[in-house]
C-alpha cells in the first residue's frame, strides 16, 4: 500500500469521520446542557448516529483497500 494514492483517500475518510462524529458529540453536549434530565435519551441517540456516520467513513476506507 505504500506509495499509493489510496492511502490519501483513507486519510480523507478518517478526516470526514472525525468531523462528523465531532459534530455529533458537540451537539449532544449542547443538548445535555440545555436539558440535563434527558441525558439517557441523548446518549443513546448520539451513539447510534455516531455508528451510522462511522459506517460511511469505514465504507470509504474499505473501498480504498479494494482500489489499492
Amino acid at each position: 500500500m505504500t506509495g499509493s494514492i489510496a492511502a490519501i483517500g483513507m486519510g480523507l475518510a478518517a478526516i470526514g469521520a472525525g468531523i462528523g462524529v465531532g459534530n455529533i458529540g458537540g451537539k449532544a453536549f449542547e443538548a445535555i446542557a440545555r436539558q440535563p434530565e434527558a441525558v439517557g435519551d441523548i446518549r443513546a441517540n448520539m451513539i447510534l448516529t455516531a455508528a451510522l456516520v462511522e459506517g460511511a467513513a469505514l465504507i470509504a476506507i474499505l473501498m480504498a483497500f479494494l482500489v489499492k
Partner: protein
Amino acid sequence: MYKVFKNSLFVAIFSVTRLFAQQHAAEMGANAGQDTLAHSVNIPSGAHSAAEEVHGAGPAVMDANHAEHAAGGHEEAEFKADEAAFHHISDLNVYSIGPWNLPLPCMLYAPNKGWSLFSSSKFGIDNAHHGSGHKAIDGYVLNHGKVMRVKDPNFPQTEVEVGHFSTREEVIDEKGTKKDVSYVEYNGTEYALEHQSTADGGLFGGGITNFYDFSITKNVAGMFLILALLSWLFLSMAKKYKSAPGTAPTGIQKLIEPLIMFIKEEVAIPFIGAKHERFMPLLLSLFFLILALNLFGQIPFLGGTNVTGNLGFTVVLAIIVTLVVNFNGNKHYWQHIFNMPGIPGWVKFLITPIEVLSIFIKPLTLSLRLFANITAGHIVILVFISLIFMFGKSGANPGAAWGASVASVLLALFISAIELLVAFIQAYVFTLLTASYIGAATEEHHAHEAEH
C-alpha cells in the same frame, strides 16, 4: 485480596507468555530454515482461560506461533504485517487453534472433474509451514490453510507429495495489473495455483476459476456452532416461558429478556408501528445472530472465526432484508418509488432513478457497514499485535520486542473493549435500519399526508 491475586496472575501469565514467545522468536531467528514443531507456548495457553483479562495476550500467542513460522520456515526473516493480518481474518479450510489443527471436511466441485469430498487432514497439514499441506489430492493443494487447485491439467490427479509453496506478484494481463500468483513445487517444476471461484468478480482475488469450494470451512463451522448455541438458548428459554408463564425471569432469561423487550419497544414499535408482531422474528433473529457472531469473532483463543467480517455473509443478510422489505411493500411504498406524489413532473425524471437505485443501495450499505466495522476492528487489533514482531524484527531484537509488547498488548486490550461495544452497536444499527425500511414499506396512507 482477590483483585491482587487476579492482577498478579495476569502479570505472571503475561510475562511467561512474552518470555516463551521471545525465546521462540530468538531461536527462529537463529535457525532460519529449520522446522520446529514443538510449541512451548502450549502451557500458558491453557492457563489463559482462567484469567479473563488476557484477551490481548491470546492473539499474541497465536501470532507468535504463526509469525515465527513465517520467519523460520520460509528462509525469509521479514515479517509482513498485512499478510499476517489478512491471514487471520480470512476463511480457511483448517480450524487451527494455536498449534492444533482441526481438519474440516472439504467438498470441492470442479466442472471437468466432479465432486471431491474428503477431510482436509488428507492434505497432511504441516504446522511448520503455516498450515500448508504437503500432499496434493486430485489436483487440489492446501496453501496456508486455503484449498487451491493446480491450473495445469497435466498435474497428476491422484495423491502425491508436493514441496514448497511460494507466492509471487506477477503481471497477469495485458493491462499490466499485478496480482499475487501462488506456486507449488512438485518434482522440480513449479505449478501455478488458482483460488476457488468467488462471486465477487475478482475483487478479493478469485473470480470464476476452475473449481468451486463448498467445503465446511472455519467460518461455516463457526456458524453451525453459533446456530446450535442460539437454538439451544432460545428453545430452552421458550420452554421455561411456556411451562411457568407469568413468573419472574431466572438465569439467562434475565439477560435475554431485556434485550428482546428493548428490540420490541425501542426498535420495532416506533418504526413499524401496529404491525410489528409480524416482523419481530426477523428483527430478533437478525439482532441476536449478528451480536453472537460479532462476539464470537472477537474471542482470540478459538482460532478467529470471523463470520460477520466476510462480505458474503453480510450481503446474504442484506438480500434477506431486501426481499422482506420489497415483498411487504404496499401500494404507497411502490408509488413513492416510481411515481412520487406531490412533486412536479420534470422532477420525477430525476427522483425516480435515484429511488430505484436506493432499493438496492440501502441494503448494500447495510451489509458494507457491518462488514467494514467488524473487519476494521479485527485488522486494528491484529496490526497492534504485529507491532511486536515488527519492532522485534522477528527475533533479531528481543529488547525492542519486549518494550513494544507491553504497549501493544495494552492497546490491543483497549481496542478489544471498543470492539465489544462495536459488536453490540452494529447489531443494533442493522436491526434498527431493517425496522426502518420495513416501516417505510408498510406505512399506511394517513402517515403520508403529514409529509406531503
